[in-house]
């Protein structure tokens, strides 16, 4: 793994006994000695600390907030201009075919926009922003900042104890906090379905802060293995698996992320890549949809499992895009795409696992109720 990039917390992961694996060009902890199952359950019952420093952070600045926001709206089908200071939104970079190039979080910090993108896409995303934004908008890659997430019902207790200002933050708020003497940018968000915070901190301060957080009661380090099962149970998409350049926001079940003001008839409708395709999908519906899938038996149905409309014969009606064991559900869970006639919750389909067709029902997402601070 010598050719892999390292986050500022690499040495600490190794010291904590993490199993390091390659992920998006980085050596990342897939699990610690606690193991994936217990790490998952710990996050749902206490607080899990994640290193997500491999993700890309960039700051967009320009002559005014309006200039930054309007420019960014040319790249995403989201309402950026309407974002209040100190608020964050989920977003999507789209392409001309209406597919998703990446999913992201963007937050308004005064007149600037903080953008957080997936590790595997970050080089392309930074290039896309530099090419797609006018010269007056500066795109500054924040390679000198680490990103950590503290997730779970005890996360708020820990962070509010360190900085009481955190108690004023609701889901998707962003604020400057002081944690153990470190000035950080915090957002009340995450990707586990739990309440929690994502914390951007200068890279050279990250290890000290993380060591302090790990001394707090209820806080344990959590690897990418549990991060994956947590987000799957929460019904959240993993880019490159559940959404990709060939998948549009409507079929992905992400229409909620396209605010009314950017839809046909809205004040700032269209004006982003693939707007016509996405407008048509919103109006006409789509041929396939992302759904939750709950296998009836105990066998996990993993990515790539083909879904059929009959136990024998019949036709393929879909494919699993993420699947595995849900520790909180205590059984297998999956997400995938099925044709529209099979997308209703409760529809029985069959997944082909090792040559056998096993029953699986279309299920509501998320599999576990979201636990955000509204």
């Amino acid at each position, binding site marked *: 793994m010598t050719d892999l990039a390292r986050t500022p917390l690499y040495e600490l992961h190794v010291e904590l006994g993490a199993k390091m694996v390659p992920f998006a060009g980085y050596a990342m902890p*897939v699990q610690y000695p606690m*193991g*994936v*199952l217990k790490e998952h359950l710990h996050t749902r019952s206490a607080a899990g600390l994640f290193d997500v420093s491999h993700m890309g952070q960039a700051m967009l600045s320009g002559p005014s907030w309006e200039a930054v926001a309007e420019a960014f709206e040319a790249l995403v089908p989201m309402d950026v201009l309407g974002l209040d200071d100190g608020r964050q939104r989920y977003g999507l970079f789209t392409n001309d075919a209406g597919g998703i190039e990446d999913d992201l979080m963007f937050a308004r910090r005064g007149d600037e926009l903080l953008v957080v993108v997936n590790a595997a896409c970050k080089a392309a995303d930074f290039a896309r922003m530099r090419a797609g934004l006018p010269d007056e908008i500066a795109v500054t890659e924040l390679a000198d900042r680490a990103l950590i997430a503290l997730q779970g019902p005890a996360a708020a207790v820990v962070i509010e104890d360190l900085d009481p200002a955190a108690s004023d933050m609701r889901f998707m708020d962003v604020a400057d906090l002081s944690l153990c003497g470190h000035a950080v940018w915090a957002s009340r968000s995450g990707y586990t379905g739990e309440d929690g915070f994502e914390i951007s901190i200068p890279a050279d301060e990250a290890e000290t802060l993380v060591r302090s957080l790990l001394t707090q009661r209820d806080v344990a380090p959590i690897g990418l*293995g549990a991060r994956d099962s947590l987000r799957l149970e929460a019904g959240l998409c993993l880019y490159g698996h559940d959404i990709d350049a060939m998948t549009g926001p409507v079929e992905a079940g992400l229409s909620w992320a396209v605010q009314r003001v950017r839809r046909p008839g809205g004040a700032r409708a269209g004006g982003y890549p693939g707007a016509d395709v996405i407008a048509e999908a919103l109006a006409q519906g789509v041929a396939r949809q992302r759904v939750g899938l709950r296998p009836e038996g*105990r066998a*996990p149905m993993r990515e790539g499992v083909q879904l059929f409309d009959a136990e024998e014969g019949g036709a393929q009606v879909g494919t699993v895009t993420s699947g*595995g*064991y849900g520790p909180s559900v205590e059984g*297998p869970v999956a997400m995938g795409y099925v044709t529209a006639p099979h997308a209703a919750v409760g529809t029985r389909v069959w997944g082909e696992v090792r040559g056998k067709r096993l029953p699986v029902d279309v299920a509501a997402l998320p599999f576990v109720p979201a636990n955000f601070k509204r």
Partner: protein
Amino acid sequence: MKFTEEHEWLREEDGVMVVGITTHAAEQLGDVVFIELPEEGTTVSKDDEVVVIESVKAASDILAPVDGEIVEVNSALADNPGAVNDDPQGEAWFFKMSVSDASQLDEFMDEPAYQKFIA
């Protein structure tokens, strides 16, 4: 107890071989969440895929270590696959099999040899 290069162990008991996976294999697999066992009475050949074991990470096949017949399976594992992580070389055996050709057992390792194999 004998060990295979596929990280299985075999223990003779009442004239049949009890088969499971090693502590090392269980650690490498991670938390086991699903096990599919063969039917009792199945005739198997060496290297047939007889057990499917899924951990939180991935699915793996367990191969028949020798030719013979599956005479008993540990059906308790289906409801409690995590036992494979708790006691892989004890309670969490997979199946018992008769052995057609005892000479096939000769190639397997003893414990010190296996420890060296995984070191």
